């Protein structure tokens, strides 16, 4: 790809890319070029590096070797490769969940400590008490007559036990419709303990264990479910409790949110526990005063990737961009500090930041760069850490080379903050809080159905193009779109997340719903870890009634059109295992080398779990497939066709 317009449809990205090119700064697109041609065996999933007898690879044309040194055929090899990615993806989200649950545990200890000494050393508390008590009850803890510390102690213990549990079922599986729970039990897919499922999956993929690709997939699904209905869900729930549950909120998006006369701090990554403090610290009068003393008008905190989504959902903090814009934010020359936590942080950031005055600061002991400033974040030093980082940014302001600053002027409004809980109130108010209007809309055919469009960016595709073309096509056909992660940011930049978008892009039925409720046709549900919100929202839809008994009955489909991360594979698999038809774009999973596995994933598995994968590299075709699937589900429910 040479032309900038082919790299991204986003004008801000194009401008920043032009600047990078002009200043000879290499970005992900350049590195992709350098990687061409990419490894064919890797793409097909037919290369095995599991043991030291290899590496082995299977000849896709059937002429050369058809089995590895150990005798593993391409089905086993491809399935094991896929399974390992699932384990990694699940680990990422679940470890995130564990950290958040641990924060809750520390909060409880802190409470005890506080009672003893009367001092207060960290800055977290219970923000959403209602949800806190509800969750406690879900875990069999009666919150009556207990201090929040006592409840937090019991609850965090139970939550952390979910990771180490050896037997039984993950508690959140009970949130799924009865029929789905029964199916999981019947198929042996109900996850027992989060860590156990990851470990067991990895075990089965080592040399000489599981050779049955279907069985490997089963184990992989159980592991994926332990993420979606386990680790991710714990992360979402506890974050809402200690950081606040999102409410519909306005925000702004794209590189234009960086401000020329301000100290610009970019938070990037996935875990919001520190960035929450950064939001507070950025408003610290002392720091603001300091910034002014350096000639800045103030401190401007913005986000990239899912950390951005988290602080957007809770505070309306502006979003500078999605995954592929992380380097470009620095390229504007206007970023004093980029604070990163975990996941999706390109190693290249170090080099790009070295081209400018920008300080890259790592904060997680799990994610470090050689030669990069590291300020270790722990929850008992949260605010101080955040303040130190912001201060470093403020003090870096005089180092900015104003000649090299060029911020693209593009920014867009958006509305975010939709959660499964919010839906009740925005549809029914305080007294009639309900999902009924949503179900009614689908039953009546005003809405054709629901779609989850999620996932990353990938330079192999024109940046943001797949997300936006697909989503526009879906809403045109009266499909209400739920989004998370970088996909939501992509569509936000194109103006699809403002309520006005309904009139411009949505079909008549969806328009009527949006107008009635006052929502955009595309709803932002949060970070990629918050895909769990989609699962629970779908369970509420079933519980409300009229749309079948199982998640697989709902006229709905999912898609990750520009995916790149292993987390996306895990998410895709837990959606499929929950009964959702799910399309992956970019390039398909690295499984095409195995016809059997490909057929299983895209076809046979639907008969087992009610959902399956499809692969496509055309956003309009993705939309057609999703709509066809939705219509198929409408028919199965004997619903009238879409109204308009």
């Amino acid at each position, binding site marked *: 790809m040479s032309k900038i317009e082919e790299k991204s449809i986003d004008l801000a990205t194009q401008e920043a890319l032009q600047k990078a090119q002009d200043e000879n700064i290499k970005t992900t697109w350049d590195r992709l070029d350098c990687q061409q041609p990419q490894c064919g065996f890797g793409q097909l999933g037919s290369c095995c590096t599991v043991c030291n007898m290899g590496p082995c690879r299977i000849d896709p044309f059937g002429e050369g070797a058809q089995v590895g040194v150990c005798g593993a055929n391409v089905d086993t090899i491809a399935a094991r490769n896929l399974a390992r990615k699932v384990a990694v993806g699940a680990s990422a989200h679940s470890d995130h969940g564990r950290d958040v649950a641990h924060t809750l545990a520390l909060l409880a200890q802190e409470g005890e400590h506080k009672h003893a000494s009367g001092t207060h050393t960290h800055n977290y508390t219970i923000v959403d008490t209602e949800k806190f008590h509800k969750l406690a009850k879900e875990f069999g803890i009666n919150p009556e007559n207990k201090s929040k510390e006592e409840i937090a102690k019991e609850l965090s213990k139970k939550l952390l036990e979910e990771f180490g549990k050896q037997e039984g079922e993950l508690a959140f599986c009970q949130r799924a419709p009865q029929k789905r729970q029964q199916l999981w039990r019947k198929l042996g897919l109900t996850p027992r303990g989060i860590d156990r499922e990851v470990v067991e999956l990895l075990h089965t993929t080592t040399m000489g264990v599981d050779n049955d690709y279907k069985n490997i997939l089963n184990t992989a699904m159980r592991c994926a479910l332990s993420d979606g209905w386990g680790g991710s869900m714990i992360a979402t729930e506890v974050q809402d409790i200690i950081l606040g549950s999102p409410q519909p909120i306005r925000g702004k998006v794209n590189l234009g949110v960086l401000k020329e006369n301000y100290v610009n701090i970019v938070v990037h990554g996935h875990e919001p526990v520190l960035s929450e403090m950064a939001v507070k610290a950025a408003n610290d009068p002392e720091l603001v005063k300091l910034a002014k003393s350096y000639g800045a008008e103030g401190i401007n905190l913005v986000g990239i990737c899912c950390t951005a989504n988290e602080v957007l959902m809770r505070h309306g903090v502006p979003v500078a961009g999605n995954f592929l814009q992380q380097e470009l934010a620095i390229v504007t020359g206007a970023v004093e500090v980029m604070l990163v936590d975990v996941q999706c942080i390109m190693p290249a950031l170090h080099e790009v930041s070295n081209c400018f005055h920008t300080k890259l600061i790592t904060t997680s002991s799990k994610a470090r760069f050689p030669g990069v400033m590291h300020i270790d974040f722990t929850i008992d030093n949260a605010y101080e850490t955040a303040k130190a980082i912001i201060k470093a940014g403020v003090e870096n302001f005089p180092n900015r080379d104003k000649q090299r600053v060029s911020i693209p002027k593009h920014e867009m409004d958006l509305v975010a903050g939709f959660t499964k809980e919010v839906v009740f109130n925005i*549809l*029914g108010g305080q*007294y009639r*809080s309900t999902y009924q*209007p949503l179900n009614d809309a689908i039953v009546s055919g005003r809405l054709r159905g629901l779609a989850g469009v999620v996932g990353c960016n990938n330079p192999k595709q024109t940046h943001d193009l797949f997300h936006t073309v697909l989503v526009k096509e879906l809403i045109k056909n009266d499909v209400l779109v739920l989004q998370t992660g970088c996909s939501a940011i992509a569509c936000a930049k194109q103006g699809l997340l*403002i309520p006005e978008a309904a009139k411009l892009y949505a079909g008549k039925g969806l328009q009527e719903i949006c*107008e*009635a*409720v*006052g929502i955009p046709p595309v709803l932002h549900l949060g970070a990629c870890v918050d895909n769990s919100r989609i699962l629970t929202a779908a369970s509420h839809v079933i519980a409300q009634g009229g749309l079948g008994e199982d998640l697989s009955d709902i006229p709905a489909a999912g898609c990750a059109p520009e995916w790149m991360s292993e987390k996306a594979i895990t998410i895709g698999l837990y959606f499929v295992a929950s009964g959702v038809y799910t399309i992956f774009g970019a390039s398909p999973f690295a499984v095409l080398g195995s016809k059997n596995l490909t057929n299983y994933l895209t076809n046979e598995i639907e008969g087992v779990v009610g959902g399956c994968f499809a692969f496509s590299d055309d956003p309009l075709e993705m939309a057609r497939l999703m709509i066809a699937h939705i219509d198929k589900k409408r028919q199965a429910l004997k619903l009238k066709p879409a109204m308009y």
Partner: protein
Amino acid sequence: MSKIVATSVIRGAKQIFKEAETFLNKAIKEKGPEQKISFPETAFYLPMANALLGVKVETLKEALPILEHAKSLLPLDPSEKVWLPYLGDALNAGMSTLFCEEIIMALRYLYAQEPQKDCIGFFSDTIMRSLGIQLVDGRMAGFAAILGAAPDNKIAVEIVRGFQQRNILVFVGSSSNGRSIIDQLIEENVQMGWDNYIVPYGRDTLSGIYPLNWAIRSALTFGGIKPGQAEKCLLYTKERVFAFGLTLGPLDDLKYATGAGAINMGFPIIADTDIPEIKPSGITTYEALVKELDYKKIVQRCIEVRGVKVKVASVAIPVAYAAAFEGERVRKEQLHVEFGGKASAAFEFLSTNKENEVEDGKVEIIGPDVDALPAGAKSLPLAIIVDVYGRKMQRDFEPILERQVHRFVNYAMGLMHVGQRDMNWIRISKDAFAKGFRLKHIGVILHAMLHQEYSAIVDKIQVKLYTKAEDVDKLLGAAKKVFDERDSRIAGMTDESIDTYYSCLLCQSFAPNHVCVVTPERLGLCGAYSWLDAKASFEITPTGPNQPIPKGATLDAKLGQWENVNEFVRQKSNKSIDKVSMYSLMDSPQSSCGCFECILAIIPEVNGVMIVHRDFSGMTPCGMSFTTLAGSVGGGVQTPGFLGVGKLYIISKKFISAEGGLKRLVWMPKELKELLGDKLKKRCEEIGEPDLLERIADETVATTTDELSAYLEKVKHPVASLEPLM
């Protein structure tokens, strides 16, 4: 909710809140925080606040937290661009409006500003209960609340008549451009009032709370829902109260805000102006807000949008025909001709005949018709003789069918019917006559309606109408003999003489856990269903609400408990009631739906019980009025010591026989004594207490327990000799 609508709603809600706040502060300042406030004749305080928040507001001070809550429900106005979701906000604003309007109305009562001229004002609990049975049996299909004024009087009348013809009760009120539909109807001499299905509530939009805080009480009264269970109450009104709003003329912020409150209750709004519609459903069953600009279609549109199930009788007569006309009066100045009453000899008589002697549909007039009255005459003698034949017809059903003549004739617009048998009185108005109504049409009505409602037992019906005095006299003699036979047959019927009782589950559409068991000696608590009625109803609709209960083994003859009755009640009460005593007030008494004619209540201080009927609004010795008492009885729950009953149960031999029967009765309103008159006297004689009636206290001698106690002692009421109740 379109943004324009949401914005109006929120603006209106804020305005109404402001008014409530100002008014309440003024009242507190002028009358003090302890000043009592209430609506007349209700046990539900400020009903909306009571139902939804579970609070009992009795003083000005106690209204403050309600106002505070209403304030907390007020959202920000939707922004012009990049607005946040406003549907939930607008619904919250609607709720705020309901609370505030109710406070304003209660304050107006305090300042004697309500009810407004020609208006009913607050609807009492009694009205709600007495309408209960009409709601469940389909006579009253739904409720329209009209707000505003039609473009002209003619359209106003047409719309209201349209609803009446479909048996929809119409609440009229509010105004647009300074004009109210109430005055439009007054100008057109339209009869209004509960009996006419047209009820004026008030000329401003705020008084629109009356139909709404009336509807919410039905959830507490019939639904057995506890005060404070807000969502259940609102879902109850959505699913079971078929009401809707119709706005005539331009909508202002106040109407929008009130409408949003109604939508929370599941009541959609139909407008006659070009407003943004809210089509998606979910809060309401179908569309929430729609427009219909064509007045010819507007009534039908309302019915569709609310999903009202209208049962319209198709009767080929030249005047409108619907249950809504049942209560209409024909006054002297409107009179064309009358029969019976004090004017002439008249009676009606229905009997079974042989198949070959009944020609279905035949209507004969023997004598002059109403267009051939002697000069100056305003009355004629009349005998209405109805011959029926049906394979499943039984002699016992004759009086039941005959009793329907009253209802069926009354349904015709311009006709009035009072009484039954040889005590009847029929009037035909000048309007009806001018439209072509003749005597044969009475035959047409009876033929059509008996077929429509009793086709399961009646195959053929013919009607003869005699208008010559000699015929009427002759036929009456024969009929009277039959009337006497019927009376003695019913009098001889006892609970022991038959082995099957009947259930009545009619009210389960309103009170899901309530089961009535109807026996020969205990009629349904609504007073409308005797054992024979229930039996006939079962024959007519074998899968209907009246099911036979073979009583099975007797478990306790004194209490009146039978094995199968208990099992039946257990099943049909959704397992909420395990056993029921037919003859006891204290031990597992029957539950009540809420439409009882009378309430029995224990007065422990005198070891007796009192009874009060629905129409008595005064205080009773138990310290509660009927409405307050009723609050603790309805909703399908058993409350020992309290019991809803039909009036005629008082003269039954089984009247709380487990507690000593009539001798236990120490107080009843005078009016009720008079109503039961000779029958009650006779019953007193039967139990060997011929002067018991005088010894039972009434409101003229006692309205407190002390007074009652003193009176009972003075007259030596036999209750003193009975064993303790508790």
